[in-house]
């Protein structure tokens, strides 16, 4: 059965000037990008854990409370962040097995996971802040004598927090926007199915 309207659409559709040769040519160099990104993240996590392990060794060798507490912070909190980030990436989609609806549903779940990571990041900073406060309390009580190191350590933690908190706020805002878009598009699909 002839469909003149569709035939016209076909002509106009095919009449588009679409070039893809440049994109195709760049494909070869782009294939390694996801693997490099994952490798970098895992490498960074390994470095943090390594530093934590070194702190633990120093704490044992020199019987140092300061090194011990620093090691505890790095070895407990950082791996949790690293594993969460790795799991989020590992759970990557097999595009041929998905449908538009499942992609959007996954988008919502990923946004929720990212928001949990943001909250975990803020909690991590809060733990470090509490840790610094406890160190100062120990210093004031005479349990440790490390004034110079404490001042340096406090400044480092404060600068880290000052850099990290705005990034967390930006990330949270962006993720919430993505979640809103996912829900809107899901609504368009499910409205047709109901």
């Amino acid at each position: 059965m002839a469909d003149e309207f569709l035939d016209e659409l076909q002509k106009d559709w095919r009449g588009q000037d679409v070039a893809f040769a440049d994109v195709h040519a760049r494909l070869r160099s782009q294939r390694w990008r996801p693997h490099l990104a994952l490798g970098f993240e895992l490498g960074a996590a390994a470095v943090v854990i390594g530093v934590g392990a070194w702190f633990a060794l120093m704490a044992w060798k020199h019987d140092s409370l300061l090194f011990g507490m620093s090691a505890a912070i790095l070895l407990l909190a950082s791996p949790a962040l690293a594993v969460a980030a790795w799991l989020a990436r590992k759970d990557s989609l097999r595009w041929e097995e998905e449908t538009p609806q499942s992609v959007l549903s996954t988008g919502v779940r990923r946004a929720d996971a990212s928001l949990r990571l943001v909250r975990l990041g803020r909690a991590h900073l809060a733990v470090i802040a509490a840790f610094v406060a406890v160190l100062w309390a120990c210093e004031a009580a005479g349990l440790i004598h490390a004034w110079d190191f404490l001042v340096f350590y406090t400044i480092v933690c404060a600068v880290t927090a000052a850099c990290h908190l705005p990034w967390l706020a930006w990330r949270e805002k962006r993720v919430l926007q993505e979640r809103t878009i996912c829900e809107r598009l899901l609504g368009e699909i499910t409205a047709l199915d109901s």
Partner: protein
Amino acid sequence: MSKSADEVIREFGQGLARVAATYERDRALREELLQEIFLAIVSALPRLQDVSKLKPFVYRIAHNRAVRHIQQRIREPVSGAEADELAADAVGHEQAMIASERSTALLEAIRALSLPYRQVITLLLEELTYPEIAESLGISLANVGIRISRAKQQLKEALNHGR
């Protein structure tokens, strides 16, 4: 006989570029999206078990990847006049200019469709059969027919209104 990734890209590249254009106006972002689609197809090709289903396989990946693209695009899209460069080969040639304008108008009308209608109509225009469209989008055959019918109706209204 299985095809290499390069062969698949060469065969479907133009169609995939047309699909990408319905999701993204900005030329640079459109190329980025097309790159992501190609990468996803290349990664998935070893998992294709039935070569006869290559076409719905490729377009399924394209639409899924494009949906991810628009869900992550936070900024407002630029206007069609600034971003789209659907230029005729022979500038000043009247017939080519008219054809180019018609293509632009069709593209804008398709972009204005809601996501489910946009997807079925682009697959239909890429000459997928109804069963292939159903497979690409993971919906029933009946649903394909209903969505196509409504999409065509909306396109008719949009294109007649603009002419």
